[in-house]
C-alpha cells in the first residue's frame, strides 16, 4: 500500500470538510448536516472538499455558487440537494455535480463521493470559470505595484482604495467591498455593499435581500394566516426558530460547541420549559449576553414604533405583539415579554425569554387553536398577507451599520435575524 493510499484511508475516516451554499427552499436542512459528526461545515470554501448546495439556485445565486466552486481546493466535488427545486440551471454550469434524489440520504451521498474522491476513483471537479485576471494588470515599478490612475474606482476590474474623511475627519483610504451571498453567518442570499475604512464601515447598502429558506407549505406561521392552527404547534415552532437562531449566533461568536448543544435542543422531538431554562442559565454564564453584545447595534425605540418588527421591536421596550389581538391567546393569559436597551444583548435576551414563554404557552394551550386569521405574530414580527417584517428591518440595516467596526456590524446583522419569513423575492428559481 502506497503512502497516498494510506493517507487516503486515514483521511476517509476524518469528518468531511463541507462548504454549504443555501438557496431558496433550503429550510432547516443544514441543521442535520451540522449535527452529523461525519461532516464538518467550514467557514471558507478554500478548506472544503465538498460543496453542498441546498435548495434552489436562482439566477442571482448561480455565478456566486460557481465562483465558490472554483475557489475550493482539489480534490473537490459538488453535491446538490435541491429539495424539490428545478435542477437544470446549475447542473448545466457544473457538469460533474451529484444530485441528491428525493429518496436519497444527502449525508451518504456526501460521504460516498468524498471517499471515491480521496481514493482517486473519481476525478476532482475542474474549474469552470477561466483562471485569468479580470483585466491585464498595468502597474509600474519593480513589482508592478504602482502607476497612475490606480486609486479609486474600479480600474482594470479591481476595486481600488481611495481617500475620504473618516469618522474623526481624517483623510484615510476607503475600500469598496461587496460581501455575500454565501457568507456562513449571513442569512443566505443577503449581499451587502460596503465602504470600509480600516475595519470601520463608513457606508452600507443592501445589494440583494436574503432568500426565503422555508418552503411555504411547511411553515405553521404561514398556515396560520389562512386558517386556525394549534397554538401548541405555533409556539413550539417559535421556540425552535429562536433556538436555531441562537445556535447560529453562538457559532458566529466563536462558540461552535455550545451552538451545537443549542441546535440539538432546537431539533429535539421533546422540547420542554425546564431544558430551555437550563440553557438560558448556561448562556448567561458565558459572556454572550454581556461583553460580546452589550451596546452593539442600538436601535432607538421611536424608530421601531408601529413597525410590528416582533422581538427586535420588543427588545427596545415596545409592547407590540399580534398575539394580543387573538382571544385564544388572551384566554391563555398571554402578555408580551419586553426587554429594554434595543442593542444586540437586548435582542438576545428577548428571544431567549420568548423561547421560555412560547414553551409555557405550548404547555397550557392543550388543543386550543388560534382564532384570528390574516395576521399572525411570526418569530420575525407581525406577518400579514403581503407584508414582510424582515424586509422592513432590512431597510433600516444600512443606517445601523454605518460607523460601526466590522465585528460590531456583523454582530448587529446576526442579532437581527434577517432570514425572511415571507417571500418578498420569488421563492422558486
Amino acid at each position, binding site marked *: 500500500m502506497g503512502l*497516498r493510499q494510506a*493517507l*487516503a484511508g*486515514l*483521511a476517509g*475516516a*476524518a*469528518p468531511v*470538510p463541507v462548504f454549504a451554499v443555501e438557496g431558496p427552499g433550503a429550510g432547516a436542512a443544514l441543521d442535520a448536516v451540522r449535527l452529523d*459528526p461525519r461532516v464538518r461545515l467550514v*467557514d*471558507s470554501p*478554500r*478548506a472544503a*472538499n465538498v460543496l453542498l448546495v441546498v435548495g434552489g439556485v436562482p439566477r442571482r445565486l448561480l455565478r456566486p455558487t460557481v465562483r465558490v466552486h472554483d*475557489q*475550493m*481546493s*482539489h*480534490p473537490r466535488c459538488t453535491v446538490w440537494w435541491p429539495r424539490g427545486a428545478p435542477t437544470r440551471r446549475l447542473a448545466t454550469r457544473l457538469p460533474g455535480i451529484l444530485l441528491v434524489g428525493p429518496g436519497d440520504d444527502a449525508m451518504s451521498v456526501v460521504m460516498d463521493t468524498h471517499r471515491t474522491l*480521496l481514493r482517486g476513483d473519481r476525478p476532482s471537479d475542474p474549474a469552470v470559470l477561466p483562471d485569468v*485576471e479580470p483585466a491585464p*494588470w498595468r502597474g509600474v515599478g519593480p513589482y508592478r505595484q504602482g502607476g497612475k490612475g490606480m486609486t479609486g474606482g474600479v480600474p482594470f476590474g479591481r476595486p481600488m482604495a481611495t481617500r475620504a474623511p473618516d469618522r474623526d475627519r481624517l483623510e484615510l483610504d476607503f*475600500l469598496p*467591498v461587496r460581501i455575500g451571498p454565501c*457568507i*456562513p*453567518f449571513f442569512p443566505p442570499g443577503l449581499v451587502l455593499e460596503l465602504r470600509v475604512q*480600516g*475595519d470601520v464601515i463608513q457606508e452600507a447598502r443592501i445589494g440583494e435581500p436574503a432568500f426565503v429558506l422555508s418552503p411555504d407549505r411547511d411553515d405553521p406561521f404561514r398556515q396560520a394566516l389562512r386558517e386556525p392552527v394549534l397554538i401548541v404547534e405555533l409556539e413550539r415552532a417559535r421556540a425552535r426558530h429562536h433556538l436555531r437562531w441562537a445556535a447560529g449566533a*453562538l*457559532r*458566529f*461568536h*466563536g*462558540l*461552535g*460547541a*455550545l451552538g*451545537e*448543544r443549542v441546535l*440539538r435542543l432546537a431539533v429535539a422531538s421533546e422540547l420542554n420549559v425546564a431544558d430551555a431554562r437550563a440553557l438560558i442559565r448556561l448562556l448567561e*454564564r*458565558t*459572556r*454572550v449576553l454581556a*461583553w*460580546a453584545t452589550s451596546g*452593539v447595534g442600538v436601535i432607538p425605540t421611536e424608530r421601531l414604533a408601529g413597525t410590528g418588527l416582533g422581538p427586535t421591536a420588543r427588545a427596545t421596550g415596545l409592547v407590540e405583539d399580534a398575539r394580543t389581538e387573538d382571544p385564544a391567546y388572551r384566554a391563555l393569559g398571554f402578555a408580551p415579554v419586553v426587554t429594554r436597551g434595543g442593542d444586540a444583548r437586548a435582542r438576545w435576551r428577548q428571544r431567549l425569554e420568548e423561547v421560555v414563554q412560547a414553551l409555557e404557552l405550548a404547555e397550557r394551550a392543550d388543543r386550543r387553536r388560534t382564532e384570528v386569521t390574516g395576521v399572525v405574530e411570526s418569530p420575525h414580527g407581525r406577518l400579514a398577507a403581503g407584508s414582510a417584517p424582515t424586509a422592513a428591518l432590512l431597510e433600516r440595516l444600512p443606517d445601523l451599520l454605518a460607523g460601526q*467596526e*466590522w*465585528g*460590531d456590524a*456583523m*454582530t448587529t446583522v446576526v442579532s437581527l435575524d434577517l432570514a425572511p419569513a415571507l417571500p418578498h423575492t420569488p421563492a422558486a428559481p
Partner: protein
Amino acid sequence: MRPHAPPLLAPLAVGAALLIGVYLTAVLDRALGAWVGGRPLRPGRALAGPVREAALLVLQQRTRTERSDAEAWALAPALLAALAAVGVAVVPLGPAAAVADVQSGIVLFGAAVALVMVAVFLNGWSANSFFPLLGAYRFVALALSYEMPFALVLIAAALPAESLAVGEIVRSQVGLWNVIRQPLGLPIYLMTALGIAFWGPLNLPDAEDLAGGTRAELSGMALLLWRVARSAVLVAVTAMGAAVFLGGWQGPWLPGWAWMAIKTLSLLVALLLAGHLLPRVRQERFVVFGWVVLIPLALVDIFLSGLLLLLR
C-alpha cells in the same frame, strides 16, 4: 553553567515537545468541545481525529490567490512555529533538563512572543485578499494591549528570582509558588496568553466574523501548518505559565518532567475551556480593558513584587 541540550539534540527535543503538545491540544480541544456540545465523547475518535484531519489536509492541494506574496505566505506558518519553538526551548523540564535555559530566557521568550504579530500579519497580508488583510490589521491593532501586560507580569515573576533565567525563576518558587506570591500574575498572564495565541475569546485575527480571517484563503498543507503553529504557540505560553507561576518541575513523588507536564496540561485545559465557553471579545472594548485595567494591574503586580523583595 545552566543546563542545555547538545546542539544536535536540541531541535529534536523541541520538535518532539511541540508535536506532543500540539497533538494533545487537538485531542483535548475535541474532548472539551464534545463535552460542552453535549455530544457523546468517543475516545477513539478524539485520539485519532487529529491524525485523520492532518491526513486530509496533506491530500488537499494548496490554493493560490491573485497576486499573492508567495514567499511571505509560505514563511508565515514557519515563522510562527519557529517562535513557538524558541518559546518552548527556554522552558526547563527539570532542574537539569532544559534545551536552552539561557541567562536571559524570559527576555528571549518575550521577544519571540512579540514577533508573533509579524507572523500573523504576514499570513494575512500575503494572501492579497480582504478578510485575511482585515484579520491581520486587527491583530496589529490589538497586540500591544495584551503584549504589554503579558511582559509586565513575566518581569514581576522574575523579580523574586533576581534572575532572567527561567530555571532560576522556578527555583525561586521553592516553598511558595508565584501563583500565591503574586496573585495578580497568573490571571493576567492567562488572559493575555489567549491573545498571544489568538485563541478563543481573543481569536480576533482568525475569527468567524471574517470567515476565518488570516486563514480564510489557506487550504491543504498551508492550513495544516498554520493550525499546528498556532497550537504550538498555545503550548509554549502554557508551558511558560507552568514554569513561571506554578513552580515548574517542583512537586512531590513524581519526577520533575511529569509535574511540568501536569501543570502545563492543566493550564492548557483552562485555556481550551475558555475557548469553548467565552465568546469573542469586542475589539475596541478589549483595547480599553487592556490599557485601563490590565496594564495598571500588571504595574501594581510589579510594584508589589518589588516591595516584597525590598522588605525581605
